[in-house]
């Protein structure tokens, strides 16, 4: 059963998603990877990687497709990684350009945060971006993150050195924003 939202679901990656994920990866403007990798990934590479994936009970890493509830259209992809067991995780997101500015990123983000805090019991979630990625920063702040680290002139993107920005949302901050949910984990 996918993680269900009002307009979208977060579900497993399927073979038919690979071309869309590839397009996200090769779109320099939309790349959330921000490591300045050349936009030269191929469908075959993604297919190979997809075919190699095996059934796993490893909870350190999650990779979801975001799709619309009604039309089942691919909206983007969402990941969590670097999970310290039941402690913290990093989030990553990429949205197809045709869905930008419509609140899908925020909704997907809220779904994943609920999964991580309420189902997985994490203590905090981290978000990493850079100072000129205004869309990413806006989405993070809207989702309740606060900026905790700013490393100056650290990431070279689009012709200039930008600040690295680290953001965090703590468990209790998430629950304060969601009074409809009860935190049953004992406070540490």
């Amino acid at each position, binding site marked *: 059963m996918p993680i269900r939202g009002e307009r979208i679901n977060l579900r497993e990656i399927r073979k038919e998603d690979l071309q869309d994920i590839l397009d996200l990866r090769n779109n320099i403007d939309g790349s959330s990877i*921000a*490591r*300045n990798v050349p936009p030269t990934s191929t469908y075959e590479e993604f297919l190979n990687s997809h075919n190699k994936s095996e059934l796993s009970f490893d909870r350190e890493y999650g990779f979801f497709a975001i799709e619309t509830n009604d039309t089942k259209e691919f909206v983007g992809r969402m990941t969590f990684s*670097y*999970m*310290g*067991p039941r*402690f*913290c995780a*990093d989030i990553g997101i990429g949205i197809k350009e045709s869905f930008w500015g419509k609140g899908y990123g925020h909704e997907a983000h809220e779904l994943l945060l609920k999964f991580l805090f309420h189902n997985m019991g994490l*203590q*905090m979630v*981290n978000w*990493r971006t850079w100072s000129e990625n205004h869309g990413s920063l806006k989405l993070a702040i809207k989702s309740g993150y606060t*900026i*905790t*680290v*700013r*490393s*100056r*002139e*650290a*990431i*070279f993107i689009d012709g200039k*050195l930008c600040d*690295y920005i*680290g953001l*965090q949302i*703590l468990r209790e901050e998430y629950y304060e924003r969601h009074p409809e949910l009860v935190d049953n984990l004992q406070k*540490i």
Partner: protein
Amino acid sequence: MTFVLETERTYCNRLIEKHIPVLLEVWNSSELRYMTMNRSFRDYYGSNSHIMIYGERDITKIFEIWDDPLRARGFGIFNKETHELLGHVAYDFGWDPHFIVFNLVIYPKNRQNGYAKEVTPYLIGEIFNNLLTNNITVFIDEDEIIAMKFVETLGFKPSGVIKRETYRGGKFRNTHCFDILKREWRNVDAN
């Protein structure tokens, strides 16, 4: 014999399998329990706070990362005369080579001898002079006040506090971040 990286009393060299027993003994000592030494083998965020006692496999994995020329480097710091392992230094440039996360640890029994003061400015100078780096960032546990003051004397500026980076000793622990830019770095002789 001379080394690529050497100071008056120390030199840096690769850590190899024969150093594992020493590292296990030191890294598992209670004095290093709260050190942010894990920084050098995790990306910018994330921690290994669930590891209470390092094992041989943990250290082997760290060696692998320190051997990855596209992501990070790590060396032992040795005494020139006795070849004793004094500490380690590691730097991670996995996201962008302009941005280095720098981590230096002098092991407890070698402290109070001025090794950190001798080695840190030298290595920072080497990084700025030989790599593309524009920003060097360090992470320091909230209780390491002396280390924070020390990096500030080198010109580092506070760049943030990562909240609850680890959970140790019955409480969440914050990590303090400091950074310095290439243009802010005085030449090594001035330090």
